[in-house]
């Protein structure tokens, strides 16, 4: 067997069923008597519900029916945070367009939608607050009338930086905004709930990234013991964080299945997703950078606001975005004086929840555009200013000003590698020469360091409802000599059915094809907080290795017995146990001995058998920091305002790569989503809070024609903290494209006097910026 363990780019095992269209999603399930759900949703951004009229016939539930189900309430130990109460179905008020007010059940979704049209809801419209500035005005209408204002939380990292700032020779101030986005997975949210009398359990098939966490949410909502709930997350068409929280609709569906003692299903459609699910990335802020004349940043002062929408989500809360942003804004730079202030603000928009990389794209956006602004101010190339400020390899491990420990890496080498691949001097020459098509050329850089494998240490200080601890995996030898591994994380695009098998292969020397992964089922797997925060490969990879090692210890005496050698002489390779003098014995023989012919077992074997659960958490679990440099080259059409990406390079380091091909896929996919953030995706609302981007004709996602041939330059700096040196990589790609592309656009339009600070850089924004700059120049002319 060639090496298929850690480091081998073997094809993904799960792709066999996906490529043949044989994946199993919630929408593929059939049940006799199944009822489908359509929700009656609020047409208003802010209104009081005066009354609800039900149709004469048909199954319709409202808040009155769900009186026993408590509202969703998420707590976090941050001063200045107050939880919100989100009803499962809106009772007194609706706080965003698309909020569920009633649920209608019928034999088909079409019939349920027909029924939903017969539900009459009487509303008294209230003035909506949609943006942060409006929401913070003293006389602003309050969303939650039991609160003094529309603040969800205030989080500040105070530091005495004023004197240093004042003494600095260079000052740069910029304002930035990132638009609200929808996460737009291929498959929307989906749930099928049914009561199983034999198991005395509510059995729930749901597109959820964190089955055990969702079980805990249901236990609270339905007042049911966790043993009486089984969550099965089958194949999922993309999560990106969207399928990590507990939402009201899923709870309502489970409630109805219990109430009716019938299977009930709801599948979110694209319209629902783009209205009620428009829920990510809306952050704006102001950055003051104070630098020396060379461009060294002496002090950084940041003030930002998160437009969190109407409610704080469970379990991580709406305050989580600000926590993440504040911690990582200084990025890979040696910034020793830093102050950050943040407000997380409630508005009449859907609740904002973490999307791939959470608030880090906005944090990176603010930092990286500021670096370019400093470079302009001191008259240097942006890469020179970066090189001046980057933490060097010699400084590792590096304690950041925000208390994070950057474990390892060579940030300057990453920058050099990306730059040399892009050939900056050649582009600078092309940029200076006029082009036949009149387009302007620009080059932009963005870098980040990313806290991956976030663990107890980090979450523990926050005091959220469910924090991650030791991660467990279960490994067992089957009677015919293969391996089954059960894990609590859920695989929904990360390739874990392959990479976790590669970890088992690394330890046991067995072909990954003979390792079966069980996941996404609270009935079959150890507990886990699930798949999020770029943690699964780090944490669960370590757990699978630990379980396989313990299993190997149990297999060793049996193999020794079969080969008539000492246990310590037994090794594992090529899918067999090996002994002295070239002796080998197949795993099937070991399985036969233990399970089928135990009469032949030697005395003194461990009666616990060939089925072990073991756990893992890095001894120092402050995280493993992946890092990356993105460089983009763009051509901007000054008449249409359109942007073409001419070249795009990613120099990425996520430590040891378990499967380099899968890592490439993660980086490419994340980068594609980041290009959406940079240039296309924006949930627009009108002044009354009506969403305007409600189909994929108006919510523009990048497609194959918008994604360039991204060139990857991977390096591997193993983490000294984690098993195998693995760092997380699931989220990273999405962090840097917006700042890299905005920096490139600003580089291209420098002669026009344009400096955009708002993403996405749509054609309208670019043209408007060109016009404004032209107007300013004309106004300034004598």
């Amino acid at each position, binding site marked *: 067997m060639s090496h298929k363990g850690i480091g081998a780019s073997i094809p993904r095992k799960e792709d066999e069923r996906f490529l043949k269209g044989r994946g199993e999603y919630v929408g593929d399930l059939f049940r006799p008597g199944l009822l489908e759900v359509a929700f009656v949703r609020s047409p208003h951004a802010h209104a009081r519900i005066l009354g609800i009229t039900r149709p004469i016939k048909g199954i319709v539930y409202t808040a009155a029916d769900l009186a026993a189900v408590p509202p969703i309430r998420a707590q976090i130990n941050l001063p200045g945070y107050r939880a919100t109460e989100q009803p499962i179905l809106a009772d007194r008020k609706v706080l965003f367009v698309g909020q569920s007010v009633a649920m209608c059940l019928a034999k088909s979704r079409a019939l349920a939608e027909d029924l939903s049209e017969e539900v009459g809801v009487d509303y008294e419209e209230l003035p909506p607050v949609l943006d942060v500035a409006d929401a913070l005005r003293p006389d602003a209408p309050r969303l939650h009338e039991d609160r003094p204002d529309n603040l969800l939380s205030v989080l500040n990292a105070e530091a005495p930086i004023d004197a240093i700032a004042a003494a600095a020779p260079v000052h740069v101030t910029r304002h930035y905004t990132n638009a609200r986005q929808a996460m737009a997975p291929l498959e929307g949210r989906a749930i099928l709930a049914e009561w199983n009398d034999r198991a005395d359990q509510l059995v729930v098939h749901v597109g959820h990234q964190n089955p055990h966490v969702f079980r805990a949410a249901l236990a609270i909502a339905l007042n049911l013991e966790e043993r009486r709930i089984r969550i099965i997350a089958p194949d999922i068409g993309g999560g990106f964080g969207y399928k990590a929280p507990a939402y009201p609709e899923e709870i309502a569906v489970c409630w109805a299945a219990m109430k009716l003692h019938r299977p009930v299903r709801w599948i979110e459609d694209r319209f629902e997703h783009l209205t009620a699910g428009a829920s990510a990335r809306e952050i704006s802020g102001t950055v003051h950078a104070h630098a020396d004349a060379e461009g060294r940043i002496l002090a950084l002062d940041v003030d930002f606001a998160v437009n969190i929408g109407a409610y704080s989500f469970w379990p991580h809360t709406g305050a989580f975005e600000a926590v993440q942003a504040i911690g990582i804004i200084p990025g890979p730079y040696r910034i020793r004086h830093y102050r950050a202030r943040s407000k997380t603000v409630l508005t009449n928009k859907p609740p904002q929840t973490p999307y791939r990389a959470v608030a880090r794209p906005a944090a990176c956006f603010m930092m990286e555009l500021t670096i370019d602004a400093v470079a302009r101010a001191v008259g240097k190339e942006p890469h020179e200013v970066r090189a001046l400020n980057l933490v060097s390899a010699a400084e590792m491990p590096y304690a950041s000003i925000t208390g994070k420990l950057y474990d390892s890496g060579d940030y300057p080498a990453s920058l050099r590698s990306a730059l040399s691949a892009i050939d900056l001097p050649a582009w600078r020459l092309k940029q200076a020469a006029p082009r036949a098509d009149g387009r302007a050329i620009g080059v932009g850089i963005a870098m980040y360091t990313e806290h991956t494998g976030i663990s107890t240490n980090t979450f523990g200080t926050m005091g959220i409802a469910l924090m991650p601890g030791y991660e467990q995996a279960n490994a067992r030898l089957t009677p015919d000599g293969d391996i089954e591994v059960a894990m609590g994380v859920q695989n929904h695009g990360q390739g874990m059915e392959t990479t976790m098998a590669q970890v088992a292969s690394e330890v046991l020397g067995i072909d990954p094809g003979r390792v079966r992964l069980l996941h996404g089922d609270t009935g079959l797997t150890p507990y886990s907080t699930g798949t999020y925060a770029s943690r699964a490969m780090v944490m669960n990879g370590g757990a699978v290795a630990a379980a396989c090692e313990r299993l190997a210890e149990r297999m060793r005496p049996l193999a020794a017995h079969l080969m008539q050698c000492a246990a310590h002489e037994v090794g594992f390779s090529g899918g067999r146990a090996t002994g002295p003098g070239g002796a080998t014995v197949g795993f099937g023989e070991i399985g036969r001995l233990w399970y089928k012919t135990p009469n032949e077992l030697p005395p003194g074997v461990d009666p616990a058998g060939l089925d072990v659960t073991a756990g893992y958490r890095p001894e120092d679990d402050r995280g493993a920091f992946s890092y990356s440099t993105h460089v983009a080259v763009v051509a901007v059409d000054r008449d249409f305002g359109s942007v073409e990406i001419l070249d795009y390079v990613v120099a990425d380091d996520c430590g040891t790569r378990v499967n380099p091909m899968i890592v490439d896929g993660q980086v490419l996919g994340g980068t594609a989503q980041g290009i959406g953030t940079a240039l296309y995706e924006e949930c627009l609302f009108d002044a009354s809070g009506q969403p305007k981007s409600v189909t994929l*004709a108006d919510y523009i996602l990048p497609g194959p024609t918008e994604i360039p041939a991204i060139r990857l330059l991977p390096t591997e700096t193993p983490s000294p903290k984690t098993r195998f040196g693995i760092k997380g990589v699931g989220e990273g790609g999405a962090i840097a494209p917006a700042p890299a592309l905005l920096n490139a656009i600003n580089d291209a339009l420098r002669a026009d006097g344009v400096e955009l600070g708002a993403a996405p850089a749509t054609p309208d924004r670019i043209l408007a910026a060109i016009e404004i700059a032209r107007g300013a120049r004309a106004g300034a002319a004598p």
Partner: protein
Amino acid sequence: MKPAPFTYHRAASLEQAVALLAQGGGDTAVLSGGQSLGPMMNLRAARPSQLVDIGRLEALRGISVAEGHVRIGALSTHAAIEDGAVSGPLGRVLARVAAGIAYRAVRNAGTIGGSLAHADPAADWPAALLALDARIHLRGPGGDRAVAIDAFLAGAFETAKAADEVIVAVDVPALGPTARFGYVKFCRKPGEFAEALGAVLYDPGSAQARVVVGATGSRARRLPAAEAGLAAGLSPAAADIAALLAPVLGNPSALVLKRQTAAVHRALQEVLTDA
């Protein structure tokens, strides 16, 4: 996103289709490729109580060459035209327009007749076929009639077609050997509708010149003054085009005017430089 209840008829003949439409009143819709009607019904923005599926009618299929023009059956798909169903120089022009519509999956089902009947202000065929001087053949309870495209296009989602008429075919004049076609469409990405669209036909041999702006928010429009200049082989400056466009577009924003000007200007450049 499921349609409201409706009854479905598969028309066995053109006569039956027209009769069903006449009986059904305004509440009955023709179904061709379903690429516009389908999404609108799923959003319940369109709620016809009856559908008349004309998709299997032979009378609406096929492409034939006649004296001076090509007749394109209404059911011809964008994909068939993209793949060269129409031959010669005109076929190449039509293939280029078709290839720029939506994605292949949509083009496989969407039809030229459906696109014209739907008359989306940002669609490709209405603007391109206005530049190419097409005629639309209609069948109604009263029989057949043909309408020049300039008279057919009425406004946003409005045409001269009566509710009980079916588009049967489109006649497009053949192109002379010296004819050139310029087409510039600006959209956010392929598959999105145009935000600016310029279509220009210029034949120096016959001094034929047609200059069209599409994506106007209403129907596609010709620009007669630009046509007169072009017929004389003149290339108007961008500022002159903007002046012509402003009234046609009815108080456009500066951004819209800039883009539309660029689209028409570039389409003109294309026919004038492409010797």
